[in-house]
């Protein structure tokens, strides 16, 4: 187990290193342009020279690369061009919001997806299964941000059940320190998390249904029925426990999906997270912020996959025992 974990960690670190190198190349390419033919906005020569000096672009590229790596290792993600502050600070502010959003969405995704998938598998090819299957396919095919817009229009603007965006009511709750303010925060969180979670849940349901139907055909399910167990127990205990194993793999795949969705959903709901930060930065060509966000997102995906692998080992007794 330990040796496997070390190997797995080494591979993850190598991937992150490759992503870092890629971001370096991109930043380099991007900073090559502001002095040159950046059409539209002409850049004053002194600004250009200042930029070049500031980013050490006059040094040999090898040195720049080493310095870049060194800075990253110290947690220095560079200086934002538009915000005039360290990128690390801006990200540190945005990340908790993104985490809250994606983790809430993850819970909705898996809880709802699991329930729907099990229900559909239990009613295989009957009306409930087919209707829900088509509905899930449709939701799963929507652009996430568009679903956000529709929910925003229906629930926030027309029915006024939810706020139209933002993190919290800044007038009533300048700081989040009381129970009503926490409730206000949850109220603001509901629509974006629901948007992200619903699209994910539709995919999870499809996956879970297939996994469960696969398990239901196996011999040990027949054994469980032969024991005289109620169908509910056969399905929810014997079959589901086995069908949850592939779900752990799905967990690893869900991370990139949620982060991708967060970029757009945060924009739609003015949710001050990493995705919105990156989008705003992009529109201002604020490269240090954009690449840092991409880097963080990749690290999260790599960690998510690592976590999924470890979870798989814990969840499956066949692996668990062999590994110890």
């Amino acid at each position, binding site marked *: 187990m330990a040796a496997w974990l070390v190997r797995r960690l080494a591979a993850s670190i190598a991937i992150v290193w490759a992503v870092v190198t890629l971001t370096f190349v991109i930043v380099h390419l991007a900073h090559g342009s502001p002095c040159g033919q950046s059409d539209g906005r002409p850049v004053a020569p002194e600004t250009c020279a200042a930029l070049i000096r500031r980013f050490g672009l006059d040094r040999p590229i090898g040195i720049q690369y080493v310095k870049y790596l060194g800075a990253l290792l110290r947690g220095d993600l560079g200086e934002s061009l538009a915000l005039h502050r360290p990128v690390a600070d801006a990200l540190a502010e945005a990340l908790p919001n993104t985490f809250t959003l994606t983790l809430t969405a993850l819970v909705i995704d898996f809880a709802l997806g699991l329930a729907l998938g099990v229900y559909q598998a239990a009613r295989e090819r009957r009306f409930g299964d087919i209707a829900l299957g088509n509905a899930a396919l449709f939701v799963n095919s929507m652009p996430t941000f568009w679903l956000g817009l529709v929910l925003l229009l229906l629930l926030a603007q027309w029915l006024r059940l939810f706020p139209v965006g933002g993190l919290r009511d800044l007038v009533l709750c300048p700081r989040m320190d009381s129970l009503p303010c926490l409730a206000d925060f949850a109220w603001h969180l509901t629509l974006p998390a629901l948007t992200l979670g619903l699209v994910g849940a539709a995919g999870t349901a499809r996956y879970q249904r297939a996994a469960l139907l696969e398990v239901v055909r196996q011999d040990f399910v027949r*054994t469980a029925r*032969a*024991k*005289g167990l109620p*169908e509910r127990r056969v399905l929810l205990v014997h079959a589901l426990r086995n069908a949850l194993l592939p779900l752990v793999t799905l967990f690893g795949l869900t991370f990139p999906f949620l982060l991708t969705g967060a970029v757009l959903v945060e924009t739609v709901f003015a949710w001050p997270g990493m995705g919105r930060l990156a989008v705003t930065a992009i529109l201002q060509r604020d490269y240090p912020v954009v690449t840092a966000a991409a880097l963080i997102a990749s690290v999260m995906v790599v960690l998510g996959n690592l976590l999924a692998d470890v979870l798989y080992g814990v969840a499956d*007794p*066949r692996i668990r025992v062999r590994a110890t």
Partner: protein
Amino acid sequence: MTEPLLRVRDLKTYFVTEHGSGTARAVDGVSFDLYPGETLGLVGESGCGKTVTSLSVLRLIPEPPGHIRPGSFIEFAGRNLLTLAPRELRAIRGNQIAMIFQEPMTSLNPVFTVGDQIAEAAIVHQRLSRRAARARAIEMLKLVGIPDPAQRVDHYPHQMSGGMRQRVMIAMALVCHPKVLIADEPTTALDVTIQAQILELLERLQAELGMAVMLITHDLGVVAGSADRVVVMYAGQVVEQAPTPDLFARPLHPYTVGLLASVPRLDAPSRARARLHGIPGQVPAASDWPGGCRFHPRCPYAWDRCREEEPPLLDASTGEPGSHTVRCWLLTEPQRRTGRPGS
């Protein structure tokens, strides 16, 4: 004579296959009785419908594609299992009628300990507490001859050998002391030495617990030592049925004769023991049974009548009427048997 515990009459279980090859008549009019405390052997080559017959008894046929045809009748302790409400049926499954399967490797749930899986039926049917059920599971593991039962109870199936797992399956089936045990090829997937141990175990447990056993196998040799009566199946039908000594002394259906010829001799060298082919050809697909007598394409004695007309079960008993029945036209023209086969 006593009343039968399980009475199966004209059982028909068909599968509707999707890819156009039509309906598979896997079990097509099977009747037999199982008496309290006896061992009944159900014998036939692979694909004859033995498993489907046994699954039908507990209504474990996957539906769709399968279904038990109306007109079939399965009576257990005076009640028709085919019309029973799901709830009452569950009260019988695993409690009064239990079953063990051919594949010990895949028939146990990989994510639960064997103890939990044995205890489960006791918890559901006898309302035992978890603690009492665990004690019962250990007791059962000891009963089926697993060493260190107190440790083994917490093991997962993959930590055990095939023979061990089959013992666990047996423990699981017997935890509620059922009246009937259906054992579907319990030894086919196991090594020869383990096979003998498992059969011995079954025999001992039957004597101790006094249940009726339906022992399914493709090997008449397995049946010879343990069964009181034998039902021979071919192509979804019963082709011969007799008390074991009678069947071995006086096999009447050419199929039974062929099966007997392929019983491995225990004194033969082990390589030759593997499988001797007494019957040419193979069991046809269940969607495609031959007309007339279903065995006629493989039968050395077949003549015109066999190709055209399906024989009924004919009584060939020397003792009690109905104790030995055969589905073969040779019974009406016994002189053909002495003649050169195939003429």
